[in-house]
């Protein structure tokens, strides 16, 4: 069974076509990046997969089921840091436990505490457990959010621009952790990024998007110079140096 299956998917807001005729299948246990410029519809597509937006046309299946019918416990979601209230009074371990309980914990005890600590250990952030999230750097918070998403042992992890607001070292750390986690857990990882170098380096498959599906496949074919030009309009010489 495929982790994600999308057939003839289109979505419009009034006269504006946000997504047009997408068709792709993501096998289980794959690392997949959705790449495209700003406004390409990446986040909209992700929200459709999470069941947050209903589609006009086409079909979306997650592990063979409609997104509304899927057990949310099977999906770990890492939203962009900017959507969170970073002034919220919370300890890192409470944030992780919220991923387990699917609500905010009054306190974290017993098995929930053990599992939350384990998830933090998996992303090398156990030392942050009792730190308030207001005192975490962008990279530290993103690692805690990753722990929050994997604490429920999901079959699919969805990340929306996970490197936003993180420095270069934190970013490299995060991708390495993610790749390692994906290899060990056999979960499917679906990551949104506008950085095609990152997508090329870490992914098994890439969906290149600019409202329409530009390409889908292994990074070498999906991120060809021609495809990148179609999606981004320009690619710069850096592309050739790093990809070729």
């Amino acid at each position, binding site marked *: 069974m495929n982790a994600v299956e999308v057939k003839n998917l289109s979505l419009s807001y009034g006269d504006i076509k946000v997504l047009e005729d997408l068709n792709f299948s993501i096998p289980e246990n794959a690392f997949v990046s959705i790449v495209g410029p700003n406004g390409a519809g990446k986040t909209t597509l992700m929200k459709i997969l*999470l*069941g*947050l937006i209903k589609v006009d046309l086409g079909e979306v299946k997650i592990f063979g089921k409609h997104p509304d019918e899927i057990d*949310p416990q099977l*999906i770990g*979601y890492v*939203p962009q840091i900017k*959507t*969170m*209230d970073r002034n*919220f*009074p*919370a*300890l890192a371990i*409470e*944030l992780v436990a*919220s991923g387990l*309980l*699917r*609500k*905010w*914990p*009054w*306190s974290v005890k017993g098995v929930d505490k053990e599992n939350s600590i384990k998830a933090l250990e998996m992303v090398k952030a156990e030392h942050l457990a009792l730190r*308030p999230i*207001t005192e975490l750097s962008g990279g530290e918070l993103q690692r805690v959010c990753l722990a929050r998403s994997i604490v429920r042992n999901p079959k699919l992890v969805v990340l929306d621009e996970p490197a936003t607001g993180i420095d270069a070292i934190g970013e490299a750390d995060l991708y390495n952790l993610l790749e390692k986690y994906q290899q060990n857990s056999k979960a499917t990882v679906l990551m949104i990024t506008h950085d095609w170098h990152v997508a090329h380096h870490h992914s098994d498959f890439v969906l290149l998007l600019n409202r329409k599906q530009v390409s889908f496949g292994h990074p070498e074919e999906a991120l060809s110079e021609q495809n990148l030009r179609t999606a981004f309009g320009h690619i710069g010489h850096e592309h050739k140096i790093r990809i070729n």
Partner: protein
Amino acid sequence: MQRALIAGVLVGILASYYGVFVVQRGLGFLGSGLAHAAFGGVALGILLEQEPLLIAVPFTILVAIGITYVKNNTNLAGDTTIGIFFSVSMALGIIFIFMKKQYTSDAFNYLFGSILAVSLTDVIAPALLILISILLSSFWKRWAYSSFDRELAQADRLPVQFDDYILSVLIAVTIVVSIKVVGIVLIAAFLVIPPATSRLINKSFSRMTVYSIVFGVSTAIAGLWISYYLDVPSGATIILLQALLFFVVMIIKKLNY
């Protein structure tokens, strides 16, 4: 005085409990808007010569639902929506009071709060609301989750919009049942200051909630005693005491770091 103290403790618990969500979601203006909506309801009650609270409760709930509906279904900012409902309710209240013709001291009791005016209804109503809040205590975890990240809560299939309506209605009723003790003019501060004080010294949302209630209740009791012995308005005394506590905590925290 005893009745006023009981009412003070009860509304102190309610306002500080719901206040943590008001503060954390940046809804301070909602408290103000709903308090002015309550004025419209109270004024209608005075005009109809009915128990004002009985009219103010459904009136304010309707306004709360209206604000939440417009906020969730338009692109308007929350404060714009609140501002519209706030002004309409206040305007209605002014017209209702004007239509009453003869001078009424009742309106002043509601505007500024008066412990002498606290009736048995003013004790029973918050007690009932506390009972309802205890029955709905599981909502704390849902409201807290969507306060932290609305989208995350939606992705986990929490009925975020439904929860917003429940929260708005309960805040609206809290405001109405607190009116006699604190007064319409100062009720927004009563909702905001104890949780804001608690936020200064707490790093987890559950502790913030507990400390907020402790601060809200203790300042309500102390404020009512002071207002009784100095013969000054209860609402203003409580709010000044809460503000004093806020600044003391802030200074102590500053000195400790």
